[in-house]
């Protein structure tokens, strides 16, 4: 876990003091809302439907117990007893008072956290594989590199006013658990044939209004040049990105319009120039960071088996565990998707319990996943039954990871001022409708957004749902065939939209068709890819 040094701490403390002064001036009438709005947004404070909303950054989704506990305490002290984990691996609070915001940021700073660059046209929180440091299939822990990006991009003077927001992801395995190619820059760390570490750079992906899968721009950037290369990617974008048109301002449009080859050529040119300036952070800085992500002291000689004699436990263990690089350990996912619940919401008590469990069972570490769940990354297999019982008692034992009930849903019209339709009630009803068959259906990634901004990743759902406003009435488009994993693809709209009840029926119809038509070992997505969209359209509209 990265622990702030005196520079990080001084920077964050200074920002808290600055924001406190700005809030005071706003409340005293010395700043108008027009003047204040960009300042509060730089500190993650939005004005949403019911109140101010604070988005707190969880860098690459990694938290320690003290941080997680504080997130629970903030929910109690300043909000209404809960928080919402997001698809950017962050947490949002929905009921914040402006006058409390500086105190919350001060509390966060005490545990090495902040809300800087969680909004605005800057480089946002870098996301990563939520199993980083634990996954058996990674070539290296990607988090030190994500942390280096955090430090490089924080208050970067050249990239504080980009044409649009900018999102980066870093992973280090062939399996993509971070939707890497749907980012402005996605980096996969790899080893070349000589065993040297470097990065594949994918640039120009994204969801939103114009979804795009990022093309490969360079297949190997040596690790000791990767910040320089990222800087070159950003510079070309900053120079040519469409500031004249908000809807064409993301880097994906630039890469698409220039063509990946021409964009890559310009990046190479800039990269060659930047190499002469020596802007890469010194190797010792990366070493200092990497040392803080050293693996915890795993015990050796632990039993590698799991007692599955309790059927309910066995069901959960079959779904919610992930192979770990250390024998005798596993990474477990706590589903924040109880049937009929609100995806990604957790109460203050649940948040604090998860902090306690991490302290007792997982070397003090937790992760937030982009699918709005929580991971305990380093758990002894022998501890699983006891741990699971505590989860079940707290309503956190849903055995549904990557199943129909494990739905990603953005806050939608229940909270978000940009929304066209509600997302959460649709997720709740689908979860309830499919609860009895979800184990049979198997892996099914359902993703729901309340508007075209696609915070709920609907383009990348095996089944995606997009809420639209049809003459003042909520309406839902259905998409099929998306994936944000290593087999990345964009979902296609099936046809005319549905009302709220209709879209729940529609999801049941397409899953029933899958059950009828699947062949051995096929997931929903595999069957869809094999038989195509027509049979699905037939059951929906035929």
């Amino acid at each position: 876990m990265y622990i702030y040094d005196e520079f990080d701490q001084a920077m964050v403390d200074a920002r808290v003091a600055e924001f406190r002064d700005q809030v005071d001036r706003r409340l005293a009438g010395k700043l108008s809302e027009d003047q204040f709005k960009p300042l509060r947004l730089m500190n993650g404070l939005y004005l949403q439907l019911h109140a101010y909303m604070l988005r707190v950054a969880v860098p690459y989704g990694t938290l320690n117990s003290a941080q997680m506990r504080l997130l629970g305490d903030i929910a109690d002290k300043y909000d209404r007893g809960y928080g919402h984990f997001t698809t950017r691996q962050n947490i949002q609070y929905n009921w914040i008072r402006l006058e409390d915001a500086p105190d919350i940021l001060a509390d966060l700073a005490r545990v090495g956290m902040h809300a800087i660059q969680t909004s605005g046209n800057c480089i946002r929180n870098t996301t990563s594989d939520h199993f980083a440091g634990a996954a058996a299939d990674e070539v290296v822990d990607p988090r030190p590199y994500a942390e280096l990006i955090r430090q490089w991009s924080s208050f970067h003077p050249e990239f504080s006013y980009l044409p649009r927001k900018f999102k980066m992801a870093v992973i280090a395995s062939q399996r993509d658990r971070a939707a890497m190619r749907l980012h402005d820059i996605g980096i996969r760390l790899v080893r070349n044939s000589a065993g040297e570490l470097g990065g594949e750079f994918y640039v120009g992906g994204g969801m939103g209004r114009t979804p795009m899968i990022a093309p490969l721009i360079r297949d190997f950037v040596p690790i000791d040049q990767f910040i320089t290369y990222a800087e070159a990617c950003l510079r070309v974008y900053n120079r040519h990105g469409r500031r004249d048109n908000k809807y064409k301002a993301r880097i994906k449009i630039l890469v698409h319009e220039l063509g990946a080859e021409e964009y890559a050529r310009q990046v190479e040119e800039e990269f060659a120039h930047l190499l002469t300036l020596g802007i890469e952070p010194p190797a010792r800085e990366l070493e200092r960071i990497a040392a803080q992500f050293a693996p915890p002291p795993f015990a050796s000689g632990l039993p590698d088996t799991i007692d599955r004699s309790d059927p309910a436990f066995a069901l959960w263990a079959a779904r919610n565990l992930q192979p770990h690089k250390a024998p005798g350990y596993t990474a477990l996912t706590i589903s924040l998707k109880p049937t009929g619940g609100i995806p990604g919401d957790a109460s203050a008590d649940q948040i604090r319990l998860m902090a306690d469990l991490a302290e007792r069972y997982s070397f003090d570490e937790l992760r937030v996943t982009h699918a709005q769940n929580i991971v305990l990354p380093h758990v002894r297999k022998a501890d699983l039954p006891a741990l699971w019982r505590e989860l079940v008692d707290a309503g956190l034992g849903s055995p549904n990871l990557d199943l129909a009930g494990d739905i990603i849903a953005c806050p939608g019209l229940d909270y978000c001022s940009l929304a066209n339709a509600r997302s959460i009630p649709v997720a709740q009803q689908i979860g309830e409708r499919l609860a009895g068959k979800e184990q049979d259906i198997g892996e099914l990634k359902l993703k729901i957004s309340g508007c075209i901004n696609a915070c709920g990743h609907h383009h990348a759902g095996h089944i995606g749902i997009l809420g639209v406003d049809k003459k003042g009435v909520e309406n839902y488009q259905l998409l099929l065939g998306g994936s944000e994993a290593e087999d990345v693809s964009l979902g296609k709209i099936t046809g005319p939209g549905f009302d709220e009840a209709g879209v729940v029926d529609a999801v049941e119809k397409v899953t029933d068709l899958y059950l009828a038509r699947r062949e051995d070992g096929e997931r929903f997505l595999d069957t869809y890819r094999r038989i195509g969209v027509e049979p699905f359209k037939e059951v929906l509209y035929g």
Partner: protein
Amino acid sequence: MRILTGNDLKAGAVVWWTGYDWSRHVEDAADVGDQADAIAAREEAARRVNAPYAIEATRDAGGTPRPAHIKDRIRALGPTVRPDLTLKPADPAVGNWVI
């Protein structure tokens, strides 16, 4: 009718113009006719409201102003998925008013 809404500057809570003050309850909203811009400008300058805007509404059977758009009805009441956090946690029929 036209009614005026915004958020309380300090707390962020949704508020409605009553004709002389701001209320948390849409029941208290007054018809502002063509005065919305003038009231909004004056109240915002006095920091009694943040981001005010006028909307169309009709009176429901009980006489309560019902905003024309679902977004403002959700603002008026609270999230439909957390009845316990709405302004009327004990009213099981309140969802019908929103939807």
